[in-house]
């Protein structure tokens, strides 16, 4: 071979200058996003909603590493989310840890439990693993609920945090959350492209071949759970602070399933898809709560629900619409939003350069 290949090219974060320019523009956009939102309120977004989306994006990336890349399933990620949230709050309230130490610890506590949950995963597949992880999620929230240490049924108040003497508001959290999210996204992209990520994908595509090529299945399957739980734990820690209050009841099964839906809707095995899925599902969830305000469709649905459903019907209609959107996306685009992106990439890749 006479042309010397640039092997670094394959693993570079910015494969071309086009991507580099877009990434920088996107970071600038993120820096000004709070200003945009408070000034123009596009789509009725608030900084709080964007924060929630960003936190969910971290969870979705973590879950996608496990489900989309390693091919394992988890219906218990609300448990890891809760572990992260409660660990961060307790560290800060009881032992006055600073946030920047409490968050990684929250991640590591969560990932330690991920490792433990990963052990049964070695023997279980498909529906059996789904049930085991579901049991895990339920057990964690039940334990938290019944221990005084975690505030019991009442939950815990997240402490007010201060930044240079002033109490932190949504906009301050925005920058904290966004910086962490950007770093963790880059981390995930890099991880997937290097040795560990390849081992994960190999296990998904053919565990028997992966093992025959020297991949220690025990280690890498549990590692996938641990990494996934780390992402979710850190996100849980952030969640506690934007919510201001955490209650074990809120980390329920539906939450775990919603996380899974974000990953599937966004695109299994895609980091960018995870973010898109988290954004769409979170946005819909919040917006559909006010479904009656949507022009034209809203009032029609109100009439429909008043006619055919109970008095509290409109919230049911919101859930039904949410479910329908999920079905439609999965039905028409099995690769999720990511699949849609791939098909239209040729167009976007060169625009406007």
């Amino acid at each position, binding site marked *: *071979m006479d042309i010397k*290949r640039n*092997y*670094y090219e*394959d*693993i570079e*974060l910015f494969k071309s200058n086009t991507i580099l320019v877009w990434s920088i523009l996107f970071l600038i956009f993120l820096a000004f996003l709070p200003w945009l939102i408070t000034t123009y309120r596009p789509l009725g977004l608030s900084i709080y909603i964007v924060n929630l989306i960003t936190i969910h994006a971290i969870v979705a990336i973590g879950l996608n590493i496990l489900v989309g890349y390693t091919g394992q399933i988890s219906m218990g990620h609300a448990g890891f989310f809760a572990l992260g949230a409660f660990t961060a709050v307790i560290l800060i309230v009881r032992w006055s840890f600073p946030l920047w130490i409490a968050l990684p610890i929250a991640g590591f506590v969560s990932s330690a439990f991920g490792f433990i949950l990963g052990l049964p995963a070695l023997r279980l597949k498909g529906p059996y693993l789904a049930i085991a992880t579901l049991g895990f999620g339920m057990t964690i929230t039940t334990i938290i609920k019944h221990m005084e240490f975690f505030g019991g049924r009442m939950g815990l108040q997240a402490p007010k945090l201060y930044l240079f003497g002033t109490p932190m508001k949504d906009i301050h959290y925005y920058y904290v959350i966004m910086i962490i999210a950007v770093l963790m996204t*880059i*981390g*995930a992209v*890099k*991880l997937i*492209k*290097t*040795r*560990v*990520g*390849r*081992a994960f*994908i*190999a296990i*998904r*595509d*053919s565990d*028997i*071949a*992966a*093992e*025959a*090529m*020297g*991949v*220690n*299945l025990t280690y890498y399957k549990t*590692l996938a759970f641990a*990494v996934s739980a780390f992402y979710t734990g850190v996100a849980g820690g952030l969640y506690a602070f934007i919510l201001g209050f955490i209650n074990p009841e809120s980390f329920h099964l539906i939450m775990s399933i919603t996380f899974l839906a974000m990953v599937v809707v966004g695109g299994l*095995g895609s980091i960018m898809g995870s973010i898109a899925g988290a954004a769409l599902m979170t946005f819909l969830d919040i917006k559909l709560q006010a479904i009656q305000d949507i022009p034209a469709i809203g009032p029609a649905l109100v009439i429909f629900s008043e006619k055919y459903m109970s008095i509290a019907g409109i919230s049911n209609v919101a859930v039904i619409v949410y479910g329908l959107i999920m079905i439609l996306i999965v039905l028409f685009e099995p690769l999720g939003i990511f699949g849609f992106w791939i098909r239209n990439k040729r167009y976007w890749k060169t625009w406007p350069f």
Partner: protein
Amino acid sequence: MDSILKTENLTISFGGIKALNNVSFEVEKGAIYSIIGPNGAGKTTIFNCISGIYQPNSGKLFFKGEDITYLKPYQVAKKGIARTFQNIELFSHMSTMDNLMLGRHLHMKTGVWRGATFLYKGSKAANEEILNREKVEEVIDFLELQAARNQFVINLPYGTRKLVELGRALALEPEVILLDEPSAGMNMEEKGDLMFSIQDIRDDLGITVLLVEHDMNLIMDISDRILALNFGERIAEGLPEEIQKHPEVLKAYLGEEEKVA
């Protein structure tokens, strides 16, 4: 005789069927050693026992004198034994390059932290990645897989996939390679190329080859020794010309033809 791989009375059964019954053989270092036999004779089962996917009910396996009978598949790979599968087991949603890079798994060290945090060209993870990509490129050149380099395996024709699987095993830089029907599904030309590749693997790379094949011409041409199995029993072992004339072997194959007819 300098044997690199040795089995002693390998026996394994599945629900009453003896897939292997007291099978012993020895493979000389640097040999092309073939295992033949009708369908269901137990050829793949031998490979599965060697690579740790099955554990024999009794009997022993030695690699360079060391007992490897109860090692797990990844430990067997670590010892230097790589393999391909009869029904291709590739990572179909990875590119050819990445499939072969997985073959480098054991030669690399990058873990979660180093992998997730490397950002610049001179970092350890990047250096390791580049070094191993160069190694993989050699394998790609060796098997002439350049055209498939950046394609997803799922989009490749069957014959090419077989080669990618062979490449992945070679990327591991094994001392022994187990090839389970590598020419299945290939056309005559591809088969010819494969035959030369197998000889090069032994001659140029110095890898001992264990081969399961149905193509008798190919087998007789390139094998140093042959083991013939039928219903899990060793029926003959020896040089190609001995096996070709062996009455038991002829009987086993004639029997099969009668069944097919």
